[in-house]
């Protein structure tokens, strides 16, 4: 069993390595790069929320901090934004520690609210601290490569590293502690698991990878501004969606969700590649919202989590299980 899943993972990786060599269109390569970036963000969010049970509405903080670390390397230090790939992760981790210090004393809705509010503070700081962040003007750098290939392989490497590390973590002692905290924090505490320490560890890993994704975004897109990288809807909520559509609390869920979400978004943004009337692309944000509602209502455990149920629906058998296990 263990060998089989490793084989599947390696096979997938091989497919992804071959893909850009076969598909030469920059457009599709771009979509895959963005989707791979979302694999990283979705999986990181999933580690904290799906496995440790701490639903963050503030992952834009880490993405933004990572992106700005890279951007500021160029604007203030005058060195290449690629140094941000080294700096972005640790900086995001620091902001994660700060977030945890404030928020982990809170539970449930209070925690959600606090992460959301602190994310807003970061966004406002990025907007108004003009001397440091250039404010609404944003940061523009010259990207290093014209070809998409180097970015593609970098994104693929990041995604593979992220998914691999998280699956390793979830098989270690840490992983069991995380799940114990998600299932019942009091019981976990009673067994001697320091919930604050392990929630912080989970948050640190999660923020580190999200920061890396942010730094990658800066290098790839060449332009960031606070409304993009600290956006509540298009980063924090999107991270939640990616994990939820795919299946929170599963290793492969966020990866599947990232591709589903990015492809769907692109379908709407381009009015189904020009086949649908023009107003469809005006409504792409509306479709995004409707998708949130439908996903939560009918697919609470995502494509991966509800896979048996979806399979049953497709083969028209009576459903055997209602929703995946757990409570």
């Amino acid at each position, binding site marked *: 069993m263990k060998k089989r899943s490793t084989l599947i993972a390696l096979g997938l990786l091989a497919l992804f390595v071959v893909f850009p060599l076969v598909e030469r269109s920059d457009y599709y390569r771009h979509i895959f790069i963005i989707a791979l970036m979302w694999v990283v963000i979705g999986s990181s969010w999933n580690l904290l929320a799906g496995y440790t049970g701490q639903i963050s509405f503030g992952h834009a903080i880490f993405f933004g901090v990572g992106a700005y670390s890279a951007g500021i390397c160029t604007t203030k230090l005058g060195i290449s934004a690629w140094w941000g790939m080294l700096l972005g992760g640790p900086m995001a981790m620091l902001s994660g520690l700060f977030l945890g210090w404030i928020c982990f004393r809170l539970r449930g809705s209070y925690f959600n609210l606090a992460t959301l509010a602190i994310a807003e503070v970061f966004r406002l700081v990025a907007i108004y601290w003009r001397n440091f962040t250039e404010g609404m003007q944003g940061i523009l750098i010259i990207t290093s490569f014209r070809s998409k290939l180097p970015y593609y392989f970098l994104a693929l490497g990041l995604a593979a590293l992220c998914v691999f590390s998280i699956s390793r973590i979830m098989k270690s002692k840490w992983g069991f502690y995380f799940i114990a905290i998600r299932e019942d924090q009091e019981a976990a505490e009673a067994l001697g698991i320091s919930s604050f320490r392990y929630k912080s560890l989970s948050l640190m890993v999660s923020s580190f990878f999200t920061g890396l994704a942010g730094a990658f975004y800066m290098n790839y897109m060449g332009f960031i501004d606070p409304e993009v990288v600290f956006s509540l809807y298009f980063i924090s909520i999107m991270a939640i969606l990616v994990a939820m559509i795919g299946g929170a609390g599963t290793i492969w869920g966020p990866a599947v969700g990232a591709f589903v979400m990015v492809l769907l978004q692109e379908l709407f943004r381009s009015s189904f590649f020009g086949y649908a009337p023009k107003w469809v692309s005006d409504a792409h944000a509306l479709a995004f919202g409707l998708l949130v509602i439908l996903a*939560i209502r009918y697919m609470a455990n995502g494509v991966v989590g509800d896979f048996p149920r979806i399979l049953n629906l497709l083969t028209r058998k009576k459903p055997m299980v209602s929703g995946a296990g757990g409570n």
Partner: protein
Amino acid sequence: MEMFIQTLVAGILIGGVYALIGLGMTLIMGVMRIINLAHGQLMMVAMYITFVLYEFLGLDPYYSLLIAPPALFLLGVAIEKYLLDPLLKIDSIIPQNQILMTVGIGMVLTETIRFIFHSDYKSVKTSYSSSTFMIGPISWNVPMLMAFALAVLITAGLFFFLLKTDTGKSVRATAQNKDAAMIMGINAEWITQLTYGLGAAMAAAGGTLLLPIYYLFPDVGGPFTLKSFIITVLGGMGSTVGAIFGGLVLGVAESLGATYISMALKDAVGMVIFVLVLVFLPGGLKTLTRV
């Protein structure tokens, strides 16, 4: 000194309306134990209803108080009944899916309005929109004063409802202990729908009162969602009296921030207060009074 008093007056006036909007969220928080992240967006929908009535029928915004809040009450009841309530029966790994649902609802409301009315700024220019009068050296803005007075009136009405009527008592009972309330024969499902509807109606009333003063655009809701949860946390989650003080404190703090720090950082002042309250006074203002 005059400037200080003027700032204070402006803050308290706007704070009254904030309190009204925040009260709606606090009610929902009390009964359903969730934060309603569609709150400001519901308010925005009410503002557009008022705007349409004014633009096409020439109806004064204050008369819309009789139309927009009831309309939003119905919308709120429908949202609770068909979208939020069914989630309680779904088994999911993520426990806070009701909150996520409100996020989705908020997005759909904003985008639907944007789809219909586009992103342009609209405003309702009434004869009294910019009229002011002076008492001593302090100038009073007429629509602000009207908004404050009506907000106080509506708040008083809500308190009468919660304290004196049977249905109101059922709402409070459900907020205190849902299971016990159900054992006492209270239809908790209906009370929850009623509460969400009421919360939406309060936000709608607040929005309608703000319309003669504010510009209107589809994204106006977001900041008000943030404001109302700052108020809810400031007052102590689920405490209605706390929410009133929370609203006033937020109004005054924003006003002081706008005058003495920077107009642009007005919104950040609220966030900073929010984080400070979470760190130093997690129970909100409620804990200071022990009521």
